[in-house]
């Protein structure tokens, strides 16, 4: 399913792209930003490939978005690719957060950005919801995926079950439903 990958990016392009994703995520919504760039803008992965990787990256230990960067970087350029993507994702934000942290310990409050952050959070939530609509239109095409989607949201979002409990229940059904029916696929 990797036919979506158009041109192999260079190390520099991987680092710059993940740096761009990372810096754009002011106020949150990092997953939606990576999808926007990796799937729609760069066409490095197909919609389904990206979505499945996103859930695998949630199950595996480590920060979800760092894991996504490793998957994308390693897909194209192996270990150097993974390192470049993670470096791009974390370096400037780490410098930035250190400046914020130093300011915080100096003046014991965060520089007054509360209102702007509140607005940005509203925008980031919108980005996430819009990702739900856009991806939902592509993969919720019959009743079974709709039920899987609704059950996952209900258990995880409304009942606040931990991720593992939710997936232990829904993932087996999802795999049985999605298992290729015949040898020729």
């Amino acid at each position, binding site marked *: 399913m990797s036919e979506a990958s158009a041109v192999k990016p260079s190390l520099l392009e991987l680092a710059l792209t993940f740096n761009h994703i990372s810096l754009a995520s*002011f106020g949150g919504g990092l997953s939606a930003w990576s999808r926007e760039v990796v799937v729609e803008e760069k066409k490095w992965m197909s919609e389904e490939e990206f979505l499945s990787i996103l859930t695998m990256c949630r199950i595996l*230990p480590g920060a979800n978005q760092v894991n996504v960067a490793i998957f994308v970087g390693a897909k194209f350029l192996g270990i150097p690719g993974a390192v470049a993507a993670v470096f791009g994702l974390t370096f400037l934000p780490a410098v930035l957060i250190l400046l914020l942290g130093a300011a915080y310990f100096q003046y014991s409050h965060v520089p007054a950005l509360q209102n702007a952050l509140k607005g940005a959070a509203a925008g980031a939530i919108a980005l996430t919801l*819009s990702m739900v609509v856009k991806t939902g239109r592509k993969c919720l095409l019959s009743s079974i995926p709709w039920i899987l989607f609704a059950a*996952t949201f209900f258990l995880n979002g409304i009942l606040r079950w931990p991720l593992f409990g939710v997936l232990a229940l829904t993932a087996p059904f999802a795999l049985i439903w999605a298992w290729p029916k015949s040898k020729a696929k």
Partner: protein
Amino acid sequence: MKDEGLNLIHVLILFSSLSLLSIGGGNTVIPEMHRKAVDSYSWMSGNQFADLFAISQAAPGPSILLVTLIGYKAAGITGAILATVAMILPAGTLVYLVSRFWIRSADSPLHFAIERGFAPLTVGLMLTSGWVMSKAADHDWRAWLLTGACTLLCTITKTNPILIVGGAALIGWLGWV
């Protein structure tokens, strides 16, 4: 400083072990970070920890950069770098190995089933993210109106998301939400 050297060792041990334990994402080990940084090592007060957590959530980039801030408070810039690398490297190595396996298994039925079957689950988890984020941000009706308008703009038009989030930040900055 002798203290700083000891702190560096504690930083290294703490975050490299939490790295592999952070199954389900960095947020799952935050209670343990809190316990160690505040109670065991007294690197900071509980209030400071809560404020650093807020900074790491709002600042751009992965929220796991909370460990960068904890490392910085414990042992300066060296501590910040060490904490970040220690938190990323062990889990990152494992994820890399899984990604190799994933690419090599491209033609297997399991790969196919995961790719097709996990998509609806991921959409459900994303909806949860949006839902939980809006609760954490304490959304009132004005914030929901802004979120709704931005969602519509983002879904049915090709507007650059930077403009949308930037515009929303500006509206917030003007005190309208």
